[in-house]
Each structure stands twice: as C-alpha cells, then as structure tokens.
C-alpha cells in the first residue's frame, strides 16, 4: 500500500477553546460563507460553489410561514457540516451534508414533561413537512426532492446484527398523508418524534456539473418561554463548531441557540463536545467498513477544531490523492445505485450521471497507486464499463454498478486505512478512532 506523500507533525493537546470565543464566526474572504475561525483555514474557495444550495434553502424557509400548532414559535437556521465544509482538504465532496436547526419556543405554560414531549413531536412533524414543502416547491430549480429518512432507536433481539435504528422512507405523498409504510407496519410521522427519532431530508442537486445528494439533518430543539418557568425537552445541542453557514444571520441564530442551551448545562464546553462527537463518528465510519477515508476526514476536522490547521492539512494528504477521489466517486456511484434501487429518480437520468462520474474516474491520477491497488481499480472499472453497456432500466446494469462501487470503496478503504495506521500518533486525542484503527489493523492481520 502506498499512501499519498506527506508526514503530519502534530503534538496532540487538549482543546484550547478557552482562548477563543467558541461562538464567534467569521466571513470567509469573498465567499459569503461564515464559519468559526478555527474551521476557516480548512475551507477553500471552492466552498462558494455550495452557496447557491444553502441560499436556496435559506430563502425558501424565510419565505415560508410554517403552520405550527398551538402557541409554538419556530426559528430556522441552516448550515453545512461534515467534510463538505472542508473544501480545501477534500475538494470533491462525496455528498453535501447539511442541517436545519429549528428552535421551537412555547409561549404557553406546559404542565409536565409528557406534555412537552407531545408538543415537541407535533411541532417537529409539522415543521418537517413545512421544510420539505418550502424547499421542494420554492427551490425546485436547484434542489429536487428525493426522500426523507427517519430513524427511531430500537433493539431487536432476534436480529442482533441490526440493532440500533428502525429507519423508514418517506415520499412527499407519505408526508402529506402523515404516515409511511415501513417494515414493521405503518408509522405516523408524529410517532417518529414521540419516540425520540430523527429525520434526514434528501435532495438532489447539481454540483460541478454532477448530480449529488444533499442530506439535510432536521434538528429540532425546543425551548420554553421565560414566563413558562420550565425547560422543555432538549433532544440535542447544535454542535456549532465545524459548521459552515450561508448567512451571518443564520450563524448568529445558531450560535445564540447553542449558547442558550450550553448555559443551562453544567460543564458544557462546545469544543470538547464537538470533538467527542467527531471521534465517535470517525470510529463508527471505520466500524461500518469501507469508510476509512471518511474516518480520516473526521480526524482532520478534529485537528482543525483544536487549532492544528497545518497538521490537519498534512494528515489530509490522501484525501486529495487518488485515495480520496476514488472513495468519493465510490460513494457518489453508490448513491446513484441507491436511488435506482428505490426508484427515487428516473433510470435514464441516473444512468447519464453514472456516465459523467465514470469520466471523472478516468481523470483521477493513479500514478502513485500501488500495483495491487491498480489491479483492483481496473477490476472495478471493468465492472462499471460492463454495466454501462446495458439499458438504464435493466436491473443488471445497477447490480454491476453496485459491485463497481463496492470495489472502488474497498480499494480506497484499504489504502486510507494503511495511512491511518501509519499516522496513528497524529490523532491520539481521538481515543475511539485510535481504538477502531487498532481493531481494524488486527482484523486485517488475522
């Protein structure tokens, strides 16, 4: 395995957020995008390509008057997150991850926690439908609705390999009807939020001439009015650090919300919380298999958040090499196949996109790749080319492309994992990721 060149020199240390206002934001020069000063060095000029997407969501929500039940007031804010916010280090994003924060405030007294949960669930469901309607109807020229996926935490003893989340897909028809048909029966939308579930809204958008998926996490947070005297359920905090905002107003709202929540939680320290979350995400990515490049992106982001921008850039070298590009193309191809499998987009549109993506793969410089990796890449591209010769509505085409995506992902995963093992010292402040890398290494050794 030949990882990309570069040797990060990092001395891990504790977060130094005490010296930096954790709620400050700066405009990235000439981009009209806003981020925390620590994250800013990771974000390059190409991030401005994302501005139309964020702007379309923002303006759609601003124009839309959500139909919120009862005495609830809603306040939206929109951001990008994840590796897409680090365009300097990973210039070709696999997909666009974003989040819509929703601060729900009750101006009426709430008798107890059960009532609070019920209020939250109803308001969250109404706002989710309003969000989809607003974006799908008003930003249709930029964002095409794909689906909503909800997750409810569950434990199914009979299927031990599948514990964790009970997911359900929602079409727009399902959202209007208010229920979906999931594997364990019909699920009402309100029930998703009553049971502590969450939702991700997926749109398709063109980015650099290629269709990509924009996943918007729906993050409702409920707060009571001062007159109420009670704090309602707060399912999560905003995790403000590491995110990229489309407007100063959105950044200010989100920072204010996080500050408000943090003020009520003793010992809450934004950077520490953010890094813990990133550490877990990175470890999970590795545990899922074929996601070592994703884990590497998380590690780079964590380094950036503690102010180690140079080390982050050095560690990220594979993300700019064939390894990162192959991983990205594999993810994009897998998303196209997923849409074909679920019939969420027309087969000919998806087939055309796969052809464009294949051209992108041809342009990836692979001179640095090891001979074994080159051989694996050739097998994957052969599968891809063989599938591309079939009709768009031939299911065998998508089976072939599915295997091609897996082959590409496996190839880049092995190379990225080797890089992570070589530079384990660089991310010692991420204990979960470190353990996952050791486990993956011993797994591959056996």
């Amino acid at each position, binding site marked *: 395995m030949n990882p990309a060149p570069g040797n990060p020199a990092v001395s891990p240390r504790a977060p130094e957020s005490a010296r930096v206002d954790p709620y400050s934001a700066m405009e990235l020069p000439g981009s009209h995008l806003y981020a925390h000063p620590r994250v800013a060095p990771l974000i390059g000029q190409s991030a401005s390509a994302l501005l139309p997407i964020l702007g379309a969501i923002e303006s759609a929500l601003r124009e839309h008057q959500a139909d919120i039940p009862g005495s609830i007031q809603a306040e939206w804010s929109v951001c990008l997150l994840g590796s897409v916010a680090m365009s300097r280090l990973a210039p070709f994003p696999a997909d666009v991850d974003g989040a819509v924060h929703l601060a729900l405030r009750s101006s009426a007294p709430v008798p107890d926690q059960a009532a609070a949960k019920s209020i939250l669930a109803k308001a969250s469901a109404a706002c989710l439908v309003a969000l989809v309607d607003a974006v799908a109807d008003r930003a249709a020229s930029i964002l095409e609705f794909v689906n909503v996926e909800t997750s409810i935490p569950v434990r199914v003893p009979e299927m031990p390999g599948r514990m964790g989340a009970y997911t359900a897909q929602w079409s727009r028809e399902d959202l209007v*009807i208010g229920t979906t048909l999931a*594997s364990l029966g019909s699920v009402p939308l309100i029930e998703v939020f009553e049971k502590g579930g969450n939702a991700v809204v997926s749109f398709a958008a063109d980015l650099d001439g290629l269709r990509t998926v924009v996943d918007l996490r729906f993050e409702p947070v409920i707060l009571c009015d001062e007159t109420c005297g009670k704090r309602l359920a707060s399912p999560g905090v905003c995790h403000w650090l590491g995110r990229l905002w489309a407007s100063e107003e959105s950044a200010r709202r989100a920072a204010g919300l996080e500050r408000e929540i943090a003020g009520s939680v003793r010992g809450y320290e934004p950077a520490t919380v953010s890094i813990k979350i990133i550490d877990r995400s990175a470890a999970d990515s590795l545990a899922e298999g074929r996601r070592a490049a994703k884990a590497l992106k998380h590690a780079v982001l964590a380094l950036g958040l503690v102010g180690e921008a140079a080390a982050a850039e050095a560690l990220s070298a594979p993300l700019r090499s064939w390894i990162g590009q192959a991983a990205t193309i594999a993810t994009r191809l897998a998303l196209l196949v997923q849409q074909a499998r679920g019939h969420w987009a027309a087969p000919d549109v998806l087939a055309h996109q796969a052809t464009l993506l294949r051209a992108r793969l041809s342009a990836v410089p692979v001179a640095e790749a090891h001979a074994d990796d080159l051989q694996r890449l050739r097998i994957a591209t052969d599968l891809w080319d063989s599938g591309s010769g079939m009709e768009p509505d031939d299911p065998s085409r998508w089976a072939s492309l599915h295997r091609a995506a897996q082959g590409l992902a496996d190839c880049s995963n092995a190379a990225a994992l080797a890089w992570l093992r070589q530079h384990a010292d660089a991310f010692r402040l991420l204990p979960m990721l470190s353990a996952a890398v050791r486990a993956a290494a011993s797994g591959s050794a056996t």
Partner: protein
Amino acid sequence: MPDTDRTSTNAGLEGLAAAEGVRNSADSPRRSTIESPDQYAIVEVAGSGLFGHPLLRSLASPSVSMFRPALVSFEAAVAAAVNAMRTGPAIDCAAVLLGTSVLTRVASVPADIDILVYFSVDESQADASADARVRADTIARFLTVLSDSVCARGGENPLAFVRLNVFVPLTHSGYPGAVKEYCCSWSREDLQIGSTVASLGSIELQEALGRGGQPVLTLSTALEGAPIMIDVRLDLYRRSGTGLVPTVMDAHTTWAGTLATSPRGARLPQEVEQSMLQRDPSATAQSAALHRREAHAVLKAGPRRYPKALKYAVQGLAFGGHIESAMVLARFLGSRECVSASFGSRLANLLTAARRRWTDRASLHDATRRLAAEARARLQAPHDPGHASPPDGNMSEFLERWERDAKSDPRDPRTWASLGQTARGLQSLADLPALGFLRANFDALEAMPKLRLELKRHSAA
C-alpha cells in the same frame, strides 16, 4: 365484466344443487355438511377452463374465467423460471387462483387477484441445516429468475413486476407495539444485487428466507381495461422421505378454495393437503378449511374489518360444507357497498405503488382514471333491491372526488393524498352495513363459534 350481482344468490343456490359429489343434509340446512364420496375430486367450474373441488361450483360463476388469462400468463413465467433453474435441487411448482376472486358468483368485483404457488424442493434428510441453506438459496434464485421471466413476457396478457415482499416473523420485536412481522421489500434492482435496504439495515434475500420469511410477489395486470394487482404468495415445502413438509409456519393446508388451469395443476395442492392431513389424523379437509377461515375471520373482526371477516366466513362455511349458511351470508357480497369497497381497495393498491415509487406516477395516475370510469359504470348499474341498497350521497361524493383527482397533476403529492382519502372512504362504506348484516344473520354463523363470540364482544362494547 358481466353484472352477476343481481343473480348472485339464486345462482349460488342453483350452483349448489349442481355440484357433483356434494349433498346437503335436508333436515338441518344450517348444519349442512358435505358427504363427498371423494373429497379430492377435481371438476371444471362451469366451462371456465379452471379446475378445482366440486364445491367451487356453488361459489364461482362462469365469469371466473376472466382471471384465467392472468393465471395462464403467470404459469408460463413460472414454467420458464423452473426451466432456467438447471442447477440445484429439483423443484416442483403449481400456481392456483384463490381468495375472494374465486367467489365470482357472489362477488363480481374483486379487490385484487390472489395466486398461490405451491413450491416444493426435493431434499435429502442427511443434513437438515445444509438443506435449509440450499433451500433458501434455491428459493432466492427462483424468485429472481421468476421476476425476470415475468417481465420478459409480453403478449396479450402482460404482467408487470411491482414488488417482492418477504414477511419475516419477529416474535419479540424491540419496536414498541410488538409488531409480529418484519416486511422487507425488493425492487428488481435489489433482486439482482441480492439484498435490500430495509428498516433495520441491509438484508440479503437468502437471510430473510432462511429466517422463515414468507415471500409475496406483487404483479399488476389489466382486468377488462382497468388495472388490478396480483398478489402471488409462495407456500414453501420440502419434499423428503416423509412427504411434503411446509417450511414456513403459515402454510395453507386447504386446497378447497383453489382453482387451477388444468386438472394436472390441481394435483400438487391436493398432494400438499393430503400430506398435511396425514400429520393430523383428527382433521378432515373440511374441518381444516372451516377452522382456518374462521381463525382469519376472527382476526379481521378484531380491528373491526367486518366486510373482510364476512368474506372469510363465507369461504369457511362453504368449504366446510355449510353451503346454505354460506349463501345466506354471501348475499352481502353482492351489495353496492361491497362493490364500492372493492374499488376502494383497488385504488388503495395503486396509491401504495405511487407512495413507494414501485411504478411511475404518470402511468399510475392514468390507471386511477381508468379505474374511476370502471367504478362509475359498476356503481351506477342497477342493483337488485333485494340485496343492495341504493347509492347514497357519500358514494357519489367519493366518485366525483376520485374523478376530479384523476384529472389533477400527478406530480402534486396532494393529488395522491386526496385519492388515498377517497380509497379509505370507499372501503369504509361497507364497514357498518357488514356488521349490521352479520348481526341480522347470526344464526348462519353457528358453525363458527369463535367468530360469534368475537362479534358478541363487539356488540356488547
């Protein structure tokens, strides 16, 4: 489609008299039983080209032949799939029509077409666990090949693949509400890949089948110009030294309600039933049919789905030999409310396909328009005042709304939501009348004491 509603009950009674090998007890019509010299006799039902037990002559009219083309098309696809399975254990298949679509003498508009495939795999007894894996692999491969085969067939009676669902039993689901089944759904692309992304994560078809999952293939076809869904259930058996053994818990054991396209096609179902009855010496074909349908009827009456419960009661009583009681209850199936409920179910099936993107919305929307025209024609046709109530305001309102939505923009999700409300409305029209009818004819349910008890509980409530 001929209007058989007006003559349904009388024709049914005439059919009863004509049934070969079937005799009623003259002194006690309510307790009538079959005393067939051969409970496994096979006859053709009224020149329909469909073959089954002589009892079916009392329930199926010649118009049952309208389902034959779809069954023949499907059988051809099955035969092609079996031929393509050159490697692996030997398999044997027989496809039969069943469910309420058989009841054409008493219910002229089916909600869907139900086909049952008896699927048996030859196995040794040497290594049961290895056989189970081979069986799951064989069935998975068969389902994939069958789906391709269905889609490859054109001709006069084309069938379209809609979805493959596999219902995996879960007795201790961690999901609140204690749901008993985990339904995993496969598109054709998923079948080619061999897995699907279900609610609890990715699952392979072999694994779902290996966990005792029951496959149900949904196809669609046109029936006299209007679209209709075909639900194909596979009952899975293994053939070993001791005969045919079911491999899923919910295997059907009653062939009495099934119709095949040839006497030969009816033999595997018969063999299955004989094999099952040998394992339970106290059971007879009739008692098995009666009790099974009664159990289904009780299950449907629980959540107050009375029309469905009534249909199961009719089938159970008829196949259990209580023909006159069955015909008394069958009067309701010819009512205008029942016809509207069937159209509601057909519309609901189209809506499900639209919500899940199983078929493109434009063609589904066109299908709703054709179905609305069919529903209008059938519901406006004169009904026998003896067993049908005149159309009321609600029914007309639903029809008008349906026709309006069928002209609306199919890209607008509100169009489909409105069609869904129409479907539910039409389906609910028969709910209360069915309960009233069951109460008024309580005596006819004498052979189904558990159902009577359930209904009494509802009355008390």
